[in-house]
């Protein structure tokens, strides 16, 4: 669905993505693991167009996203759903307005159904009576789930999750992981998930990639990935087991 070739992004002298290649298969869940600060968020931001890579290609349906003019790119972005690492909720709007924002803006659903639709996605992320609350009145984990609700309300073809379960308790983490899996199963949604949580990765992944030193140094189906011999990957996997 998305094929990234030779992607490079530097901030000043610091090369964060160094000719990175990655394939995101349609209808599959691809998980990216990697140590903190290795450029996982930068990778997502490059695909969704909030950071401009220095060079490389991001092919979507055989067209390079990086060559597109904004109106064309926006048409593609309508097919994207994004969960930001810090949720990025609009703090001048309450939860209802936040979640409804994309469907209201693009008139994706009938006005009188919006309320039900918002309720439906909030139920999916297991949030009760929060519609009237403002982001500043929510816990970190709740914000994340509101962000997730906002990302899925448009029924996107592909969703980018930047650490969907970080900061959530294990029970909610588990149900979010299941939600992601369900969306794939029921709606055939393609997912790119960044996470530190190996349990979540194990639960949901079809493919796992490991980002280190600006490249995907290991990429395989889940079962094979966990048997990787790469010392860097092993160190990461063993550290998790130990901890």
């Amino acid at each position, binding site marked *: 669905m998305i094929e990234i070739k030779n992607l490079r992004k530097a901030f000043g002298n610091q090369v964060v993505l160094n000719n990175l290649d990655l394939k995101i298969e349609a209808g599959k869940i691809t998980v990216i693991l990697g140590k903190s600060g290795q450029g996982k968020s930068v990778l997502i*931001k490059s695909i*969704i*167009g*909030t950071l401009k890579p220095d060079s490389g290609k991001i092919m979507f349906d055989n067209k390079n996203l990086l060559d597109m003019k904004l109106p064309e790119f*926006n*048409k593609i*972005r*309508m097919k*994207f759903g*994004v969960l*930001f690492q*810090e949720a*990025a*909720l*609009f*703090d*001048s709007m309450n939860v209802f307005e936040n979640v409804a*924002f*994309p469907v209201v*803006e*693009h008139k994706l659903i009938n006005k009188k159904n919006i309320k039900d639709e918002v309720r439906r996605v909030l139920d999916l992320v297991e949030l009760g009576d929060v519609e009237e609350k403002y982001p500043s009145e929510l816990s970190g984990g709740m914000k994340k789930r509101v962000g997730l609700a906002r990302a899925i309300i448009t029924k996107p073809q592909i969703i980018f999750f930047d650490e969907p379960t970080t900061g959530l308790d294990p029970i909610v983490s588990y149900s979010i992981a299941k939600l992601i899996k369900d969306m794939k199963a029921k709606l055939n949604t393609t997912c790119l998930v960044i996470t530190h949580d190996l349990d979540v990765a194990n639960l949901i992944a079809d493919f796992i990639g490991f980002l280190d030193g600006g490249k995907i140094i290991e990429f395989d189906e889940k079962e094979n990935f966990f048997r990787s011999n790469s010392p860097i990957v092993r160190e990461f996997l063993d550290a998790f087991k130990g901890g």
Partner: protein
Amino acid sequence: MFIFTYFGSLIVNFIDQLGGIVILASKALINVFKGSFRIKQTIDQFYTIGVTSSFIVILTSLFIGMVEALQIYHGFQKFGAENIIGYTVAVSLGRELSPVFTALMIVARNISAMSAEIGTMKITEQIDAMEVMAVDPINYIVTPRIVATVVMLPFLVALSNVVGNIGGYIVGVFILKVNSVSYIDNIKQYLDLSDLTYGFIKAAVFGLIISSIGCYMGLNTSKGAKGVGLSTTKAVVVSSVAILVADYILSAFLF
């Protein structure tokens, strides 16, 4: 050597930012003419700018009118011309003092907040989130603020004129004992409508300049909470200076 590179980079930076501000303002205004313009957000901004600032405008204008009357009285008394202080206060308020001071108050009260609010949205990725959802942040955030500032500022200047003249009247008539009938008559006789419209036009121009600067500085915030503070300071300083520069240019060349 160092000093040249320092001033050199300062000038380059200045031109760069000026360009950025002009481009932002043009994009925002194109939205207005295209008619793709958001009524709800604009009304919210009318409220924020108009209502929340009227108190501070009233307060400052009252004192400006009072001080003006006092100063002018001391000068004009020497020539026995104290009867025309009503007119003099009204004309200097209308053409100069009300637009400039009101704009400065809006900078302090609203432009700083505008820049801080947009800056916070920027560093918490709210602007990015909007872009990703294919919603143009300029259309959603910038245009309503610029339109509201441009439209509201002349009204606030009108308010400032009214209150400033009341201040002048209070000091002139009740404290300095100028004849109340001739105070008013003088204004009626000499004050031209153009003295007021001139001030309103100035105000609208100031509104365009300061709101564009406030939004630009906000959108170009980086580096966390400190960055928000920095861009807010910049927004206040640059727009205050810009008001005075624009005031000179408008006074010298346009009217």
